């Protein structure tokens, strides 16, 4: 249970003159819920982007289950067991909720275009299996009744949860949630916290970016704080809440305007 699943080592991410991440190191342990917080623009989504391969790190290394992710193609990283949701919802609007999730389950299919075309048994079997699995995930997240509705027509809260279900469809070991509670009312946030714990208890590891402090502190086992691209804290929620540097980062010093 205390084995490390993801390790960022001295990760620096530079875009031209802008240093988005500066020598960031931390690790996530298996079946842990790690919260990632920090003021706006601190670099949190950049962390997600370097983990999922959207950007290649300028310096440093990221290793997943002991293997470096350097140079790995994005879809292969996902196949390897890392999935994410997005800050701005990026569902495939013209597909149904079920289809969105099934597309994610395609990641691990052995059958491809040719076997699909000729209706080979392996293709038919996998189709059936994954369709059931997708429905299962929709039910698990609590949106099972929206199976055949087009994603673009779904209520906001359902869309956010569909993103999670879709990410789970790729059979990840590590799930990255980017502000999953954005725009939720307090009741929905409580439900979401329950869902996140449910996900962890089902065997997944979760890295969570959130702005709602009570949600993050309440659900995370540990919290990492990033400010201006640098890690300024990495500890239990209770310790982090009282950390002077963290408080300064959020409240700021008078001249700063973030």
């Amino acid at each position: 249970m205390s084995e490390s699943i993801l390790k960022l080592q001295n990760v620096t991410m530079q875009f031209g003159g802008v240093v988005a991440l500066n020598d960031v190191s931390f690790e996530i342990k298996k079946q842990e819920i790690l919260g990632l917080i920090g003021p706006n623009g601190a670099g949190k989504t950049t962390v997600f982007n370097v983990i999922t391969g959207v950007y290649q790190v300028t310096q440093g290394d990221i290793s997943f289950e002991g293997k470096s992710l350097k140079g790995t193609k994005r879809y292969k990283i996902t196949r390897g067991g890392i999935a994410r949701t997005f800050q701005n919802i990026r569902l495939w609007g013209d597909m149904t909720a079920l289809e969105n999730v099934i597309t994610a389950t395609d990641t691990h299919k052995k059958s491809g275009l040719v076997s699909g075309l000729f209706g080979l048994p392996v293709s038919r079997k996998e189709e059936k299996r994954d369709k059931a699995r997708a429905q299962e995930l929709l039910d698990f997240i609590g949106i099972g009744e929206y199976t055949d509705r087009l994603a673009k027509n779904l209520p906001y809260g359902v869309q956010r949860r569909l993103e999670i279900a879709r990410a789970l469809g790729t059979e990840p070991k590590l799930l990255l949630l980017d502000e999953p509670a954005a725009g939720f009312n307090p009741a929905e946030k409580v439900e979401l916290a329950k869902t996140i714990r449910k996900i962890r208890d089902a065997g997944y590891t979760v890295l969570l970016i959130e702005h709602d402090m009570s949600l993050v502190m309440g659900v995370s086992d540990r919290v990492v704080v990033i400010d201006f691209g640098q890690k300024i804290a990495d500890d239990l929620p209770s310790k982090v809440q009282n950390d002077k540097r963290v408080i300064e980062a959020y409240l700021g010093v008078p001249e700063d305007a973030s």
Partner: protein
Amino acid sequence: MLSNFQDQFASLTIGGLSLGFIYVLIALGYTMVYGVLRMINFANSEVFMYGTFATIIVIRDLFGFTQQSEPATGFRLVYILFLCLVASMLMSGILSILLELVAYRRLRNRGSNKLAPLISAIGMSIVLAEFMRILTDSRYVGSPRVMEKKILGTFFGAELRLDNIIIIIAGLILFISLSQFVQRTRLGKAIRAVSMNEDAAKLMGVNLNFVVSGTFLVGGLMTGAAGFFYVLKYENTSFNIGFELGIAAFTAAILGGIGNIKGAFYGGITLGLLETYASFFLGTQWKAVTVFIVLVFVLYFRPNGVFGEAITQTRA
């Protein structure tokens, strides 16, 4: 062959430079629209073509020149050339504004179909070209010679032909004017602001419709000037020259980095020189393939162009 080339090099260079400036001006039409709308103004090639016809109309119909006429000289010549330039610029500028209003404006706000603006642009390009084809009965239209193409002298072995010199000097003036316009005027700054960050610009009170129309106008004016220069240099035009020159100018814009005005300059000059030298060795029938191959190479190996943005970048 090679020694022949050396002899001709300087003259070829002058010719290449004047062709280059024609490309620069058309490329500006593509690059400015791309900077503001992030789309390829496919129909700019026809905007150019209509510009060439404006010059022909001024020469042939307004001033009554025919194939037998004496070329003009002195002040009258300057007056005629100036009028042609203005006519072409206006024709293309206005056509460009109308083009945006008819074919692109509605689609700007509809994000859902990403292919729609380009398909609409292609459609307009076809409509404009076909319309002219029907008007000209599918034939080349020759321009009466208005100006004697005197050799003004030589410069390091280069023949300084009057039309090439005019194009180079006037082209340079136009380009510098445009750069200054974009740097200093209110509309120019607004155009740059929208190119860099549309949302921020809107929040700063920039009227997007006005900026877009302005961009099309300015791009069209430059493209129209290129039309005048083209007729001055080649003394003919036809309904289908838009396609050939459009692809070449577009390649130039990409080469220099699309969206980047400085890039349009370097790209245009480079392509003009390259094409002129290549034509000398390979002959003109492979010209189009050469341009395409340059385009493919640039897009494949260096899609940013020399100065521009990365067009294979993903956003997440």
